[in-house]
């Protein structure tokens, strides 16, 4: 279980451009829950993910993962509990390492790294098996450099990398936003399959309201660093994109000028 207690993050405090990225945010995510997060630019979505991953440290408040206080932990230390897929397909892997070496890096997440060879026979077979399940034919390209793969392929591999080892929470940061619609749909279907298959606790940030409602089992809407909507269960399944849009306009107090973006 993930618990955020009165998390406050302020950027550039004391200056003219002071921004409250997160305002005393409270959030409980139960084990196995798949939460989708929406909100306009600057609502605090990315900051929320960064605070959980440890890339941004909160000015005040606490973060607990399974009742363990991880507030002061570095990103590297938290990685034993937190896995992540970035928005930029290039960000989640090293292009100069081979597919296999990237997977080997990920298979050490949460373990102490040793001087043993990173790739061995057992790992090779395991990687081959996992990559074959993607159905992209990449299992024959384990020795290819990551940079030779397309954006969609890299994002699919990033998903495998993030879920290779057990994790307390999987963070997906608009991980289909940089892909073309067809590839995005493939990666999203893959996400559902992996998350449901492993019963992973997941938080997915998205720009698309349709995606936010169609996937997962709970939806949060962020606005100016606060949670303005938190729906799950029957209330959520009754919800349409139009309802969400209306709510969105209400909290913003103005008509949306980027409807298209939000609807895809």
């Amino acid at each position, binding site marked *: 279980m993930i618990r955020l207690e009165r998390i406050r993050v302020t950027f550039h405090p004391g200056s003219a451009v002071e921004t409250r990225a997160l305002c005393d945010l409270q959030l409980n995510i139960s084990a196995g829950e798949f939460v989708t997060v929406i909100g306009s630019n600057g609502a605090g979505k990315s900051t929320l993910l960064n605070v959980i*991953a440890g*890339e941004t440290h909160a000015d005040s408040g606490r973060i607990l993962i399974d009742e363990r206080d991880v507030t002061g932990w*570095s*990103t*590297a*230390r938290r*990685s*034993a509990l937190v*896995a*992540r897929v*970035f928005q930029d397909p290039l*960000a*989640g*892997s*090293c*292009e*100069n*390492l081979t597919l296999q*070496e990237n997977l*080997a*890096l*990920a298979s*050490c*997440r*949460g*373990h102490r*790294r*040793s*001087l*043993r*060879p*990173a*790739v061995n026979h057992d790992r090779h077979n395991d990687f081959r098996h996992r990559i074959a399940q993607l159905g992209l034919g990449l299992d024959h390209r384990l020795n290819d*450099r990551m940079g030779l793969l397309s954006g969609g392929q890299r994002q699919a591999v990033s998903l495998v*990398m993030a879920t290779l080892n057990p994790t307390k929470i999987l963070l997906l940061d608009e991980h289909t936003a940089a892909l073309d619609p067809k590839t995005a749909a493939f990666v999203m279907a893959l996400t559902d399959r992996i998350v449901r298959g492993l019963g992973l606790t997941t938080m997915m940030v998205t720009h698309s309201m349709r995606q936010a409602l169609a996937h997962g089992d709970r939806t949060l809407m962020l606005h100016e660093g606060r949670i303005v909507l938190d729906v799950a269960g029957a209330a959520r399944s009754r919800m349409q994109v139009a309802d969400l849009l209306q709510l969105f306009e209400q909290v913003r107090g103005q008509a949306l000028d980027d409807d298209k973006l939000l609807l895809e």
Partner: protein
Amino acid sequence: MSLIAFLGAIEAGLLFGLVALGVFISFRILDFPDLTVDGSLPLGAATAATLIVSGVDPYLASLAAMAAGALAGLVTALLNVWLGILHLLASILTMISLYTINLRVMGKPNQALLGEATVFTPFEGLGLPFYWLTPLCLLVLLTLAVWLVNRFLSSEIGLGMRATGANPRMAAAQGIETGRMKLLGIALSNSLVGLAGALFAQIQGGADITMGVGVIVVGLAAVILGEALLSTRTILLAAIGCVIGSILYRLAVAFALNADFLGLQAQDLKLITALLVVIAMSLPGLRRRWRSRRRGR
């Protein structure tokens, strides 16, 4: 060029192959431009020479030189990782400090090693002339060094180091303490350079405070030359490339100095090396610009 001059160039090339491997780890693997080497090479030389003169076994003295080099690298990395000083500046600060340290270690600007036993002494019984012996010993050592560097960079920790240089954000997300990797990598890199210094002093017959000037440029030239000649597809190829690059660089220099019609002299060496690095580093960019201009026409 005489055989002795040729073997001398091979010897110098192999010796600076150690420097090239060190520069490869800092510049290429960690993406950390580290100028500490200009100070850690004479540090290794000074440490080894001083210890040998005071009666320490040359092998122990060379190990101590490696440790001293590692320590120097550690200082640079700590300045960067802990104090947040820009890597380049951090390494310049260490390099300048080492000038004083090296003078302190030797107690004077140079330390001769005339008539002292060196790491090569035990092999003199093999009956080979010295101009064959040293390069052969160095060849064995470099083979071992290349194997070790490749083995290390293929390990779980080594892979973490490569990720730290290539994509620090991803590395942290995979649980790699990127700061610690920099400390380890820069220390490792400078320990190789310290060893090169120790061997240099024992081959040359002494340590000198000025022997480190421009070492970084020579190392970089070797790395770039190696990359141009061999593919960098695997770490092993890249590491072998460093050594071959270093040897070819020395051979080219020897030929240039031997060719009387060029009118080049030993004092022109540093300028030529710098020009070589400038040309090698700007070639890819220039080639791209030239190609796009042609396409635009």
